[in-house]
């Protein structure tokens, strides 16, 4: 399937380049998003390249960076990383029928994933059907994760390892938006294949929803025959900002096989809240997200695997200098900072009645330059403290990164 997909893209790109040699004016950038756009729109709110009058839109982004990290004084040295190259391919079959896809190559070709590939059928602005490989809309980052949109090279820890980011699945559902003069209301609701027991049986030695990403079988069949529900409601006030509430839940374990009951059904529940705004006076962008996870664990399970987790991040991005530089008329410099915290195991030890830890705290100041809005050059510095589940003295981690991320 991946090969076929790549073939389609390559054919598209080749035909694109043929056209390009003939007349570059045939290409045009799709207009950028309006102010009423929300996280739900992120899948289409990307710079696509359209080929003449064809219904085909292509695009993508790539991310390259250096990485120099030190943990308690020990460093593995400098590395160069091509974290991902993502290709978009979409098209309108009709004004009410659209197809959009996203294929991601991570760390070279170490991982190739179809992250999104869905057909959208519009009945009404407030009622659309979507089916295919969808990104479960839990939190905001999962919906809106394109690298060039962010001033930070690393994705938020809570969004990648806790939730997990870009967790996509086969399924179907509905979504829609309702506009008034000041407000925009949006919703999404999907039933998809779900998680599996690797979330509590993995080499991370902690409850980890992201461990289920390794299970590629989820694109073929459900691990237990029970669909995972993911739903999100978001509201945007054009003057204040956007607030989203999302939920994801279902049975994660294989409780029966061949008609035999193997174990009690065990559920997981995830709640997330997200918010983003731009302060009008200072043009400061604030993006925040927090999530709570509750997993029903067998009582006799290893203590490192927590039944409750929570975590999130706050990004503050401040444009500080906007001036034409070497031909970039809208060149803008930014100063930003990200604060993150994740508690991987909320609770107390039965034996000692003391707090369980397994916590991560991170602060990441950043400088970035956007010569154009869709390209960002970033310098990040991260200080992170990581406590084990017993609460022993934390590992102190420092990372310096420099890189570029750009749509193409």
């Amino acid at each position, binding site marked *: 399937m991946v090969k076929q997909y790549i073939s389609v893209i390559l054919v598209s790109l080749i035909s694109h380049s043929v056209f390009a040699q003939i007349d570059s004016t045939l290409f045009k950038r799709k207009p950028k998003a309006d102010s009423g756009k929300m996280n739900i729109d992120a899948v289409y709110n990307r710079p696509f390249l359209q080929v003449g009058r064809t219904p085909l839109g292509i695009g993508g982004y790539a991310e390259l960076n250096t990485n*120099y990290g*030190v*943990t*308690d*004084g*020990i*460093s593995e040295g400098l590395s160069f990383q091509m974290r991902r190259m993502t290709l978009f391919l979409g098209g309108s079959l009709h004004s009410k029928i659209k197809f959009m896809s996203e294929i991601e190559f991570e760390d070279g070709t170490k991982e190739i994933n179809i992250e999104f590939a869905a057909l959208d059928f519009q009945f009404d602005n407030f009622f659309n059907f979507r089916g295919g490989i969808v990104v479960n809309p839990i939190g905001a980052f999962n919906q809106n994760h394109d690298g060039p949109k962010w001033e930070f090279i690393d994705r938020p820890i809570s969004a990648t390892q806790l939730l997990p980011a870009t967790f996509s699945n086969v399924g179907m559902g509905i979504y829609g938006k309702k506009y008034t003069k000041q407000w925009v209301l949006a919703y999404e609701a999907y039933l998809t294949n779900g998680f599996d*027991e*690797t979330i*509590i*049986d*993995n*080499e*991370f*030695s902690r409850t980890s929803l992201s461990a289920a990403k390794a299970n590629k079988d989820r694109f073929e069949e459900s691990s237990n025959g029970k669909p995972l529900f993911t739903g999100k409601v978001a509201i945007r006030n054009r003057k204040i900002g956007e607030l989203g509430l999302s939920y994801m839940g279902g049975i994660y*374990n294989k409780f029966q096989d061949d008609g035999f009951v*193997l*174990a009690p059904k065990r559920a997981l529940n995830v709640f997330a809240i997200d918010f983003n705004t731009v302060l009008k006076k200072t043009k400061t962008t604030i993006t925040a997200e927090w999530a709570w996870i509750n997993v029903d664990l*067998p009582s*006799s*399970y*290893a*203590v*490192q695997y927590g039944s409750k987790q929570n975590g999130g991040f706050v990004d503050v991005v401040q444009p*500080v*200098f906007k001036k034409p530089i070497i031909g970039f008329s809208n060149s803008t*410099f930014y*100063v930003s900072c990200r604060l993150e915290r994740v508690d991987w195991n909320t609770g107390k*030890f*039965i*034996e*000692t009645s*003391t707090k369980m*830890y397994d916590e991560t705290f991170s602060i990441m100041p950043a*400088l970035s330059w956007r010569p154009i809005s869709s390209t960002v050059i970033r*310098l990040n*510095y991260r*200080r992170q403290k990581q406590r*084990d589940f*017993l*609460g*022993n*003295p934390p590992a*102190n*981690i*420092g990372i*310096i990164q420099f890189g570029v991320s750009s749509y193409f």
Partner: protein
Amino acid sequence: MNTKDKMNILFRALLISAIGFLSASCEKILPSSPEENEVLDGTIDALSTAETAKFLRGDGAFTRVFTSSTGLGPLFVSNSCISCHAGDGKGHPSTSLVRFGQINEMGNQFMNQGGPQLQHRAVVGFMPETIPSGATHSTFIAPANTGLGFLEAVSDADILALSDPEDKNNDGISGVPNWIELADFVKPKSNAISKNGKYIGRFGRKAGAYNLLNQTVNAYNQDMGIVSSFSAKDTFSGENQEPEVSDNEIMDLVLYLQTLKAPLQRNVANQDIKDGKALFVKSQCSSCHIPQMTTGSSSIAGLNNKTFAAYTDLLMHDMGKALDDNYTEGTAKTYEWRTTPLWGLGLSKDSQGGKVHLLHDGRAKSIDEAISLHGGEAVNSREKYSALSTNEKQLLIKFLESL
């Protein structure tokens, strides 16, 4: 100054900061290493390149997390070595283990009912073990891993020389070795001393393991449910199974344990520490926690004929009724415990979640409490400690915390 000028100044300031940030040495803005004597991990001196490579592979084996798909369980105590020995230090009560079924030197009467170790956790879909009716049991906190190679390299003759079963010197202390039967895969040392076909155990709270291979293979099997070519019997089914860990990985881990450095004492020259040590000796704590031992010959240069300060005699001592759990291993009595090495004691809290959990089951929440729970052969020392002034007690504890 208008807003545009202010922004210009701000931008330049930020640019200069960024350049400064980049040009600053990484050492100044990135986390530095803790002092060598503040952590337990690290190697002994003089490892060869090949030994270092093996040590690093062993480190990987030590931190490897097993899952059901890589062999964990189905019954287990924990899923990795490091989960019970964080930072190579002592364990926490939440990861302690329970052994049951043996009350005398006649052996464990519950071997066919899951003995000697309780696997109180199970992978999804399995029920954990419970202690069989009628079996007595004891809880064990994981000991620290550091310096074990030195303890392994002490000759049997040296251990026996410290033994005084008849208490001929009338000091009230009569340490004895724990004579144990060797598993098939355990080969005695070339200069090993045996008694009735049994050998001197030296690892574990009851000295129930002969050497670090013995200890490691048992831990894989009994703690994690991982079978190997050394110990192929699955703890759940009782059947022999294909190895779930390679011999090479086990031998890497054994070398890792052998070559972890000995904990380094801190503030050795401090007068309080010196005074505390003098009180430690005066209170006759050093009669069992002997300050100095010497290794015999070893193929590892850093362990060959080295003097070290573990503060143990590797012998079993009567510790009194309060610490008698009515469970034992080998020929040891239920009230006998191997003298715990005191090195690394001051760093125990850094692997036990910020608070110490001392003695075999972690019941003592301070050094003072641990001393006060010493009985049997240690009664005289305990009373001498009790008779010290508050200041003297603090000095003695300060010395112990420096180890």
